[in-house]
């Protein structure tokens, strides 16, 4: 007898019940990762090409494949509280080689976004936000560099927000729209007093 295409209904039901099989798994997490990363993490079949391509893997316990599995299984706490989450250099080597055309790097980025919403974030990331809010630049100008620029025949400050601070209110408005600066300030203050 020819088999029907796809799973018989009963089997499909059984599988859907088994899909999230741990107490602490959260199906919402899988959906949130997919929405933010805009990539198909659930297609991962755990081949490990990502970890094999990762420059951070040989020198740490960071395993991108593990994070991919956590995305699929909805293991939110396990993923977001793992300090290795912040060791991805976002080099996209894993994404270049993934045979399922997933972008694992963007899965990591989405998990970092979700971690930030729970105040889990290294301070250096927040300091970049603060720097951009105050001068428009993540790496601002300094006096040594101003003198060097002058010698090269350039303006002391580059023709960016540095030379045209009148553009700063617009930038602050955009960041404030998301209350990002206030959040960054709050978390930095909690950590550093």
């Amino acid at each position, binding site marked *: 007898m020819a088999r029907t295409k796809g799973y018989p209904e009963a089997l499909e039901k059984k599988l859907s019940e088994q899909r999230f099989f741990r107490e602490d798994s959260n199906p919402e997490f899988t959906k949130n990762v997919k929405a933010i990363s805009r990539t198909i993490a659930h297609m991962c079949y755990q081949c490990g090409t990502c970890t094999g391509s990762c420059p951070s893997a040989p020198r740490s316990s960071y395993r991108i494949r593990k994070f991919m599995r956590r995305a699929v299984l909805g293991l939110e706490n396990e993923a977001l509280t793992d300090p290795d989450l*912040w060791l991805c250099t976002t*080099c996209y080597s894993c994404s270049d080689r993934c045979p399922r055309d997933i972008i694992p790097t963007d899965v990591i980025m989405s998990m970092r976004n979700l971690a930030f919403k729970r105040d889990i974030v290294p301070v250096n990331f927040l300091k970049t936000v603060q720097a951009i809010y105050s001068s428009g630049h993540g790496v601002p100008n300094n006096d040594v560099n101003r003198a060097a620029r002058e010698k090269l025949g350039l303006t002391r400050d580059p023709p960016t927000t540095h030379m045209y601070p009148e553009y700063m209110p617009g930038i602050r408005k955009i960041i404030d*729209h998301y209350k990002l600066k206030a959040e960054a300030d709050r978390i930095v203050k909690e950590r550093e007093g």
Partner: protein
Amino acid sequence: MSENGINHKFAFYLGCIAPNRYPGVESASIKAMKKLGVELVPLKGASCCPAPGAFGSIDLAVFYAMAARNLVLAEQMKMDIALVCNGCYKSIWEVNHKLKHNKDLRDAVNEVLKEVDMEYKGTINVYHTAELLYNDKFIGVDKIRDSVTNPLTGARIAVHYGCHLVKPHKDREFEKEVMLNTECPTWMEELVAAIGATPVEYRNKMMCCGAGGGVRGYDIVHALDITNEKLINLMEEKVDALTDICPFCQLQFDRGQIEIQEKFGKTYNLPVLHFAELLGLAQGMSPQELGLDLHGISCEPLLQKVL
């Protein structure tokens, strides 16, 4: 050819590290590109791209809006953007691409931009100067070769492509197909050969510099350990210099060598130059004109060989 030999004009998006740490990259790019018929016009009021790793990790929605603001500034000038940094390319090119193709993202960004009287329209393109140099639609290898007055003959130079210009290649849309090869590309080596130097291959060429994704700020030893591995591979080939097309990679290799010396006790003294600086040298600009004295690692050994 139009007036003054200028064929193309671009809004020059500077980013942070080039103007604020390696200003020679900025001045060399402007001068060298002008000799090749490309004028770089200042993009007034631009901000940080913002940093794709450090800023994007916090909240991608804000990241899109901030990058869109920079894009709108160029849209208002009715000019395509040219930039010199892979990190900036990731933010500016990729956000431009995403906003052009995803209405939901575009609408969300425009809702915020409305508060500052801006609207993203998706009317411009974004290019890395390395792409402009390689693509004969704009400049091309032959034209570069013709512009050289001081060929860097005898210098063994390796290329660090970096990550965010070419990866992930599945999302990139270069006109030159060879630029989509991210396993073992050689188009930058063609540029190095065009200025008279000898391009050198080395082990694991496409590996990351280690600085990206906020890792330099989060765990500097981890970041430097990646850099150190690349430096070991480079020294095996006895190269005279490393050239990059990303000021952030340059910072990691150049200032990073000083940090590696402090933390790991290893000394390499390998000069690290942005390709714009090398091109400037080959076109006859002086090291002072290029601000090479601002580098953490002295470029003297290379200069003695080629000047």
